[in-house]
């Protein structure tokens, strides 16, 4: 057992845990004031529900046994995980992966803002975590998983987390429909300072998310840390540049969105690229994601807080650019297009992205439809107009 590696993974686990409250405030500031507690609650609730489900079944589905599609139940209830002891304890790996499992379904809440019934939401993310996230994590992060075996790379979850959650968000939006008043009533963010606070927490936590994914305190972790930060920085600049040219102003929400877009895009690449690549990946993500905002308007999808433009598109940008910039001088044994590896990795990355997207969309659509037709997933319109804070939780964020 390596104490340095173990210490870094334990610290990274705490950093990633902090991202979910960060996400809660990132989203919470963007919704209307009558829905801010509903948004915070959906995110914090994931820390409760998903952690328990992960311990019972999620971890073993993702990391038990040797199957390429799903695991077995050898680690159910976290029994016998000492079998995974290596440089770090098996239990450290369990905790680290648990935090990934928690934040991934929480990403969906940005698209479905202001209109999910709480118990329907609870069943949605519970089923989603077991039926969608755990298998995809298996495919991508476990050495027996078929995507891992295929040669595709995903350092910290560009496909497994961001494409997966982004596509799932779209599927749920298609099932529940748009917010009442979408397109006709103004719905500006109610508290951008909360959003900026959340962005800072996300950025901070992402250091653990990406550099922790080295699962060691080594040069790859250091490279991943610097890449992560630089991509966020370049993403912010890219987004602000486009925004300034298009609308005349550099906005705080644009700075936050660009940084997150850069962070999303570098996630699959963090430990596999070096040199100027993180700046190109982050900067391109910032620029492409601003333009991707137009998709939802064109399609009339009420992806309320732009999970598609930031997480899905950012995840695709990072996953594909890894096929270009992967560098064996940094890590791994496959070079991307830019380093003489040809199109092989790019093809594998494309297959991984499309496979995760197709599986996630299909299963999420089925789960959401089943919940909507049985117990209900969307709030009645009078509860929506009253706001989730009062209708779902009998509370108000701001006393007047």
């Amino acid at each position, binding site marked *: 057992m390596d104490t340095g590696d173990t210490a870094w993974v334990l610290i990274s686990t705490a950093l990633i845990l902090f991202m979910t409250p960060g996400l809660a405030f990132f989203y919470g500031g963007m919704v209307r004031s009558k829905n801010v507690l509903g948004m915070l609650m959906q995110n914090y609730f994931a820390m409760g529900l998903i952690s328990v489900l992960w311990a019972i079944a999620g971890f073993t589905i993702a990391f038990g046994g040797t199957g390429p599609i799903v695991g077995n139940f050898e680690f159910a209830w976290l029994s016998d995980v000492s079998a995974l002891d290596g440089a770090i304890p098996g239990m450290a790996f369990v905790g680290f992966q648990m935090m990934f499992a928690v934040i991934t379904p929480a990403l969906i809440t940005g698209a479905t803002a202001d209109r999910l019934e709480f118990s329907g939401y609870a069943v949605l993310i519970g089923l989603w975590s077991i039926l969608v996230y755990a298998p995809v994590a298996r495919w991508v992060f476990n050495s027996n998983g078929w995507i891992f075996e295929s040669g595709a790379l995903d350092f910290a979850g560009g496909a497994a987390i961001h494409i997966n959650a982004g596509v799932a968000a779209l599927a749920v939006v298609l099932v529940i429909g748009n917010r009442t008043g979408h397109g006709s009533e*103004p719905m500006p963010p109610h508290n951008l300072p909360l959003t900026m606070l959340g962005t800072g927490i996300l950025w901070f936590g992402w250091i653990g998310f990406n550099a922790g994914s080295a699962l060691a305190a080594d040069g790859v972790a250091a490279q991943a840390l610097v890449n992560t930060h630089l991509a966020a920085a370049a993403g912010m600049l890219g987004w602000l540049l486009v925004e300034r040219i298009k609308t005349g102003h550099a*906005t705080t929400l644009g700075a936050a969105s660009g940084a997150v877009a850069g962070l999303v895009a570098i996630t699959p690449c963090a430990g596999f690229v070096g040199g100027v690549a993180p700046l190109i990946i982050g900067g391109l993500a910032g620029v492409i994601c601003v333009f991707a*905002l137009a998709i939802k308007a064109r399609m009339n999808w009420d992806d309320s807080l732009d999970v598609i433009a930031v997480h899905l598109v950012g995840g695709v940008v990072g996953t594909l650019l890894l096929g270009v910039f992967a560098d064996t001088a940094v890590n791994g044994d496959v070079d991307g297009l830019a380093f003489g590896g040809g199109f092989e990795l790019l093809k594998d990355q494309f297959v991984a992205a499309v496979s995760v997207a197709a599986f996630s969309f299909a299963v999420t659509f089925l789960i959401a439809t089943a919940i909507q037709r049985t117990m209900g997933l969307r709030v009645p319109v009078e509860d929506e107009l009253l706001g989730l804070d009062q209708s779902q939780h009998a509370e108000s964020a701001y006393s007047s």
Partner: protein
Amino acid sequence: MKLITAVVKPFKVDEVKEALKAAGVTGITVDEVRGFGRQGGHTETYRGAEYQIDFVPKVRLQIVLDDDRVDDIVSCITNAATTGKIGDGKIWVTEVDRVIRIRTGDEGADAV
């Protein structure tokens, strides 16, 4: 008795208040209001979505006083609140039938 109502720019409120105190006014009531006039609103942009904000924040002051003080106090407010730019606000004067001090029951000029 008259009621003077003045709608002014929020950042001018302190100057108006000081000028009124200096002129011997013993009480004013203030609230934060929103509205539109010829100044119009502005646009805000969030992730490329433009929002037209029509209502501009203003402060409304209300002062009850004796008839013979009205001209004096109106010019006092005008001087303190003016910037010369559009959106400086309005003042209007209305008749007040009765004024009563709650603590003592005094009426009219004694109650102000």
